[in-house]
């Protein structure tokens, strides 16, 4: 029967063979198909491969930041040092600066060594104190000011070990490394080993890295990303609340309502041009407009959010427009045909159908905003901004704060290698932030996605 069809078929058509055997052309085409599919898989694979590569190196470098070494110190809060007049007046206690607490720490250290029977090659307390973070004095001082009645007693503190000691316990620092280091000596490590044995030194999970504020260059062990996380959060709130509605509104206007005239052309060209403006230029704009002209506070997440909003808008608008464009006109016709207004047809039908693309654009825009540092540089959100937790929503928006990427960028620049690990640790948190956003978007996108 195949012959019969072949004879009847059009002359240019090759004699049709069995379905089970592929003819040469089909084989060729199938090979092309397989290649094409392979390219696609390879492309996805490449993307994922790099992601994994990056993630692995991020995690490997960053995980140590999540543990920290502490030293248990029984500190005698000597009255003669802390409250010379003995009247426990907080104002007077405050007069003793953190430097005044150092002798107490030295003493406590000697005592710990003695109690644990550790031989110390060091005579001077200052040398011994190199094992302890400089933050210890501040910690004890804060405690004393809050509890003046404890003066005279011996209180046990869990103070941070210095970054080199911490590095030693994490395997980052070896004795050889300390050969020419003036911050710590190999002998210190012997002491640490013994103290560790005795249980006075321990490495535990580092909540204060997740919750804390930035610290100065000399105390990486104290630095945390918590406050800048809030900074980022408030900033992203501003970005989300402004850029999504504004971006979608602008796209709807341009795609669905705008008459085709010079003005809309101008807007269109402008938007795609803004996408290509380097982010730091938005920083220049933010400094000029929001801080110098509108007198908004410096270093404030509100301003950061506004600047990032302007930066994200083009991304959202371009992707939203693209997805609005891809909704078939028959859907609009259908809605108009039953007497919906244009506005209704857009908001009831077109927009939901365009939602996956809008969400994608938003996610990419927000991801970009979440990781952006350059514009923040000019509005004062990069640097040392160790503010406290904001004490309210308004202060969250208006008080000086940094943002995660800025914090990470700063850390990555700092000299002490302990900051390097913190930078990567911060990136992990940033990525968790990002993935949370992505998951939300995925869930939303799933609800909207359909083919027709």
């Amino acid at each position, binding site marked *: 029967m195949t012959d019969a069809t072949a004879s009847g078929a059009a002359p240019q058509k090759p004699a049709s063979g069995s379905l089970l055997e592929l003819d040469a052309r089909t084989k060729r085409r199938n090979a092309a198909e397989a290649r094409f599919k392979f390219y696609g898989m390879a492309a996805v694979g490449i993307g994922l491969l790099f992601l994994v590569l990056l993630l692995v190196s991020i995690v490997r470098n960053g995980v140590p930041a999540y543990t920290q070494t502490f030293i248990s110190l029984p500190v005698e809060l000597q009255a003669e040092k802390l409250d010379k007049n003995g009247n426990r007046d907080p104002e007077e206690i405050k007069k003793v600066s953190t430097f005044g607490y150092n002798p107490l720490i030295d003493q406590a250290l000697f005592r710990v060594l003695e109690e644990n029977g550790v031989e110390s090659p060091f005579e001077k307390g200052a040398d011994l104190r190199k094992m302890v973070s400089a933050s210890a004095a501040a910690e004890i001082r804060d405690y004393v000011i809050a509890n003046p009645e404890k003066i005279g007693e011996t209180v046990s503190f869990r103070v941070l070990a210095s970054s080199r000691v911490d590095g030693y316990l994490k395997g980052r620092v070896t004795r050889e490394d300390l050969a020419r280091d003036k911050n710590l000596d190999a002998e210190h490590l012997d002491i640490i080993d013994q103290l560790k044995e005795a249980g006075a030194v321990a490495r535990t999970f580092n909540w204060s890295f997740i919750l804390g504020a930035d610290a100065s260059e000399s105390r990486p062990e104290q630095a945390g990303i918590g406050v800048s996380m809030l900074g980022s959060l408030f900033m992203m709130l501003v970005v989300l609340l402004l850029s999504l509605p504004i971006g979608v509104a602008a796209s709807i206007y341009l795609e669905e309502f705008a008459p*085709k005239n010079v003005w809309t052309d101008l807007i269109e060209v402008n938007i795609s041009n803004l996408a290509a403006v380097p982010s730091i230029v938005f920083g220049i704009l933010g400094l000029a407009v929001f801080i110098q002209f509108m007198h908004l506070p410096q270093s404030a997440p509100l301003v950061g959010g506004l600047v990032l909003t302007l930066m994200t808008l083009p991304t959202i608008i371009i992707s939203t427009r693209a997805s609005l464009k891809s909704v078939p*006109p*028959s*859907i*609009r*016709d*259908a*809605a*108009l*045909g*039953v*007497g*919906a*207004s*244009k506005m*209704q047809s857009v908001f*009831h*039908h077109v927009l939901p*159908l365009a939602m996956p693309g809008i969400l994608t654009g938003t996610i990419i825009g927000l991801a970009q905003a979440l990781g952006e540092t350059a514009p923040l540089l000019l509005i004062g959100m990069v640097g040392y901004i160790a503010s406290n937790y904001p004490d309210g929503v308004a202060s969250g928006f208006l008080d000086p704060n940094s943002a995660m990427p800025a914090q990470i960028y700063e850390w990555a620049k700092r000299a002490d290698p302990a900051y390097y690990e913190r930078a990567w640790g911060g990136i992990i948190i940033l990525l968790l932030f990002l993935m949370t956003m992505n998951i939300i978007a995925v869930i939303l996108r799933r609800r909207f996605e*359909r083919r*027709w």
Partner: protein
Amino acid sequence: MYDSPSLENEVTDKAIKIAADKVQVFYGDTHAIKDVDVQIQDKTVTAFIGPSGCGKSTFLRCLNRMNDTIDICRVQGQILLDGEDIYDKRVDPVQLRAKVGMVFQKPNPFPKSIYDNIAYGPRIHGLAKSKADLDVIVEKSLRRGAIWDEVKDRLHAPGTGLSGGQQQRLCIARAVATEPEVLLMDEPCSALDPIATGQVEELIDELRDSYSVVIVTHSMQQAARVSQKTAFFHLGNLVEYGETSQIFTNPVDPRTESYITGRIG
């Protein structure tokens, strides 16, 4: 051009719902509708017939300004609905379309559930006070669209998962759910089997009692069966317009005659 005496006879009978006056439609440079005058009566079924591509859909879309959505489409001339120019600046096309409903040539259900497809119109027009009301409207519309039995068990399945003919009936049901005064139907029965066609035709007949219906069809029999008036389009011109019986038995224009007698389907 069309048979005016016959029209005169009718005018005494029924009010004129839509009056088109020298309507011209252009798609870019293509002149798709040329100088069409036509008066469509209330409570009447008017059939538009003519060869494919002659401009039936185009003209139909003019009647509720659906052409506004096609960028390159320009309309000239005047179309009066109840004596008011629908292309007047002050006219809100939305209100117009609520009055003049439409069933499109290609079925275009929303990618939503069957229920929502029907309920959408009533919802935006506030035709239902409660969920129960809406349920009633949906059921009634689906029944009128002759599709209730087939979908009553899967009202919440997507409308796009229906067969071609079911989609078409869904679209008909959707259009009648908003209770328009004029219903424009572009080949509503093209994908329907005879039984469903019969049901839709019954619906059209029923609608005629209160509304005006315009129907585009390629089936002469259907035109003859359901319509009182027939308009024959050819190459963008309205060649002849008159009583259906007269058009089919005694056409004035030779083109009409040749189209009708060359009939096959």
